[in-house]
């Protein structure tokens, strides 16, 4: 019999057997969305891919965008769980389970996207029978299969001690199938020394293996595009760009999911601000690298102005795809601002923070909107205004100051609300990364060489199937965490032991004397 800390039991194990009304409603809603998407997909299968908005030359559309986005999201698990496990980062413990679950479901839904996109999905097996070694799609199928198996294995290994805990702590009134399920999946785990030794070994090995597999999947997926001769795709940095984007969006999605479960299941005690602060550091690094790659990727095309490539970029900068391109850039700028700038605010602004909150902020906002109307769209106003030039200038000055105040107010708000501001950044990044995938695929396929330039808008079928896919991405973890705890109980318990041991260590206080100065006649401030 394995026993569990009674506190963990009330917070993590007992809720698994309670199903509330909100859960039922959400479940019904998600099943409804999936059912509708399934019906539309059935229609697409029986009638043909003509039901999508695709055409010649836009042979790839939203399904492909979703595919790349979803495998990007799945990078979270690899990074958080495997990389942090190997580097011994203790703050990872409460979020590894959610990260790995997100990976598994992200990958499964991503694999479905390929199925949705195929004209003859029933011939999928041919890839493994008649596969052509040169085809990047074959590499991708191989890599994806490996990654799905590896991440499922990693999730299960990491879950094993917790399943055994569940098996030994099934409440008396629980349904029979659940105790049977736990008994089956626990594989006879007793928690003895030899079992732990083997488990540690397996977890470390999978952690080492899963990182190259994850990187290879994202790289190979980028090679689907960069090994063709199509304008805009033939880029050497597309591989690392995809990997960076994957980690970036993976952290964003992870933050969103972690926060939802934290709030809804009352896990504040386990997932603390420390986790957010650590993830924030990672997030900032990824956003800087992302901007660097994006800039490089586009600069080379601008500089070359090649006849076939430049129209693709032009369509992003000021053509058909300007809204999605600048939308992406705008969202990323907001995310980076929210992550970085609050830390850089001078201290005197924080003393003024009452000026930038509550009614003051509301007043500033309303005035700013009104002034924008007066300054930019005077013909829209119900009355006519004739402003003297100096008044006009004054209004401009006030408008700029108000906007500045709003930005400062927002930044100060972000500084006070770490978690909420992180969620804003995460949503911006996740949406921005979806748009980034769109901006990579669609502008190129609409600007081919010897076929007239085309346009593309997803059809209702594609939108329904996309909605169903994202519903699956929500439903999967939702059901999973009704069967298994969302926090890795044993890892957290292990972390407590480590923290207790670390508390015993006495760190000698630093010496009060400063280092000897090299320049003895330097000006010193009088004390």
């Amino acid at each position, binding site marked *: 019999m394995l026993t569990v800390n009674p506190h963990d039991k009330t917070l993590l194990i007992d809720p698994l057997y309670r199903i509330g009304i909100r859960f039922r409603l959400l479940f019904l809603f998600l099943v409804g969305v999936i059912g509708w998407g399934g019906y539309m997909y059935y229609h697409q299968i029986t009638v043909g891919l003509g039901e999508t908005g695709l055409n*010649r030359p836009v*042979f790839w559309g939203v399904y492909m965008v979703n595919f790349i986005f979803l495998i990007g999201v799945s990078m979270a698990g690899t990074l958080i769980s495997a990389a942090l496990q190997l580097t011994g980062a203790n703050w990872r413990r409460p979020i590894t389970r959610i990260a790995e679950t997100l990976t598994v479901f992200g990958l499964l839904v991503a694999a479905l996207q390929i199925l949705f996109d*195929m004209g003859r999905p029933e011939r999928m097996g041919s890839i493994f029978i008649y596969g*052509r070694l040169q085809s*990047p799609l074959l590499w991708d199928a191989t890599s994806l299969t490996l990654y799905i198996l590896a991440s499922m294995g990693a999730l299960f290994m990491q879950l094993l001690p917790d399943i055994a805990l569940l098996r030994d702590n099934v409440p008396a009134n629980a349904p029979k199938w659940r105790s049977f399920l736990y008994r089956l999946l626990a594989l006879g785990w007793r928690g003895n020394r030899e079992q732990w030794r083997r488990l540690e070994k397996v977890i470390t090995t999978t952690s080492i293996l899963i990182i190259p597999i994850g990187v290879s999947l994202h790289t190979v997926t980028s090679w*689907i595009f960069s090994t063709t*001769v*199509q304008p805009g795709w033939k880029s050497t940095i597309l591989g690392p760009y995809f990997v960076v984007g994957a980690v970036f969006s993976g952290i964003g999605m992870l933050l969103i999911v972690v926060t939802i479960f934290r709030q809804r299941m009352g896990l504040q005690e386990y997932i603390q601000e420390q986790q957010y602060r650590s993830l924030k550091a990672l997030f900032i690094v990824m956003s800087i690298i992302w901007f660097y790659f994006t800039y490089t990727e586009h600069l080379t095309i601008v500089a070359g102005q090649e006849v076939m490539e430049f129209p693709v970029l032009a369509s992003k900068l000021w053509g058909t795809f300007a809204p999605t391109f600048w939308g992406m850039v705008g969202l990323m700028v907001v995310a980076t601002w929210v992550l970085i700038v609050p830390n850089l605010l001078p201290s005197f602004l924080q003393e003024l923070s009452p000026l930038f909150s509550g009614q003051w902020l509301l007043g500033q906002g309303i005035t700013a909107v009104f002034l924008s109307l007066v300054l930019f769209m005077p013909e829209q106003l119900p009355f006519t205004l004739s402003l003297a030039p100096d008044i006009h200038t004054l209004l401009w000055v006030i408008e700029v100051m108000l906007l500045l105040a709003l930005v400062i107010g927002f930044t100060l708000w972000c500084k006070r609300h770490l978690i909420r501001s992180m969620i804003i950044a995460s949503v911006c990044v996740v949406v921005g990364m979806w748009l980034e995938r769109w901006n990579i695929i669609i502008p190129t396929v609409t600007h081919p060489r*010897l076929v007239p330039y085309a346009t593309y808008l997803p059809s209702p079928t594609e939108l329904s199937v996309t909605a169903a896919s994202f519903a699956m991405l929500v439903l999967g973890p939702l059901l999973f965490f009704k069967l298994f705890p969302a926090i890795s109980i044993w890892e957290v318990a292990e972390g407590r032991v480590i923290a207790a041991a670390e508390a015993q260590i006495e760190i000698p206080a630093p010496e009060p004397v400063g280092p000897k100065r090299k320049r003895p006649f330097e000006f010193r401030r009088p004390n």
Partner: protein
Amino acid sequence: MTSWAMVIDLDKCVACQGCSIACRFENNTPVVAPEQAQKGRAIRWNDVFPDPINPTEETGEYPFVRTRYLTRPCMHCVNPPCVKVCPVQATYRDEEGLVRQNYDRCIGCRFCTVACPYGVRYFNWYQPEWTPELAQHLSPDAVTGPGRSEGPAARMKGVVEKCTFCIHRLQKARAQAEAEGRDFRAADYVPACVQTCTAKARYFGDLDDPESTVSKLEQNPRAFRLLEDVGTHPKVIYLREG
């Protein structure tokens, strides 16, 4: 070795689109409804189109337009981008240099259609249908075998199709020569578009035979290939106007 190639003399071409029509009837190309064609879903193994097809600063505006008509079958590249990317070898290059497409193998991933820089590959968005009148006159020729259907054979929805240089005509010509007890000659085999060309602008033959017409025309200073810079080495050779 044989290496089938086509030469198109743009000086002779009158852009009558006879080649496109002949191809359509020879190969049972599915017809699509007008609104589908509007969406860019028409299937034309052989196509006549202005070059450059997308207006640039160099094409100019009426009346100073600098454009011309090109007619385009599949290029049957020596280094075909479509073949390399197919994950199931549904499209492949045979020993005579023809890039072929097996409808029974194709999984409809459309990687080849995306990878082809010439845009000569087409996808069946719906199940091909013909009006009863047209259905009576479908060509019975087909290149079939176990797990294989090519050329004019019936297509299903969700697969890619393309010009095959009338591969069924090659097989028929070989069978004919064998039945007559003589050796197969390159002149026995000619695709439908070449046979029908009003202005006799198209030539067809074996590029590996230095005495063939296509080999001689390839040496012509007017000869050029489409998109030579992408490194596909097409086996459709154009002769420049003028």
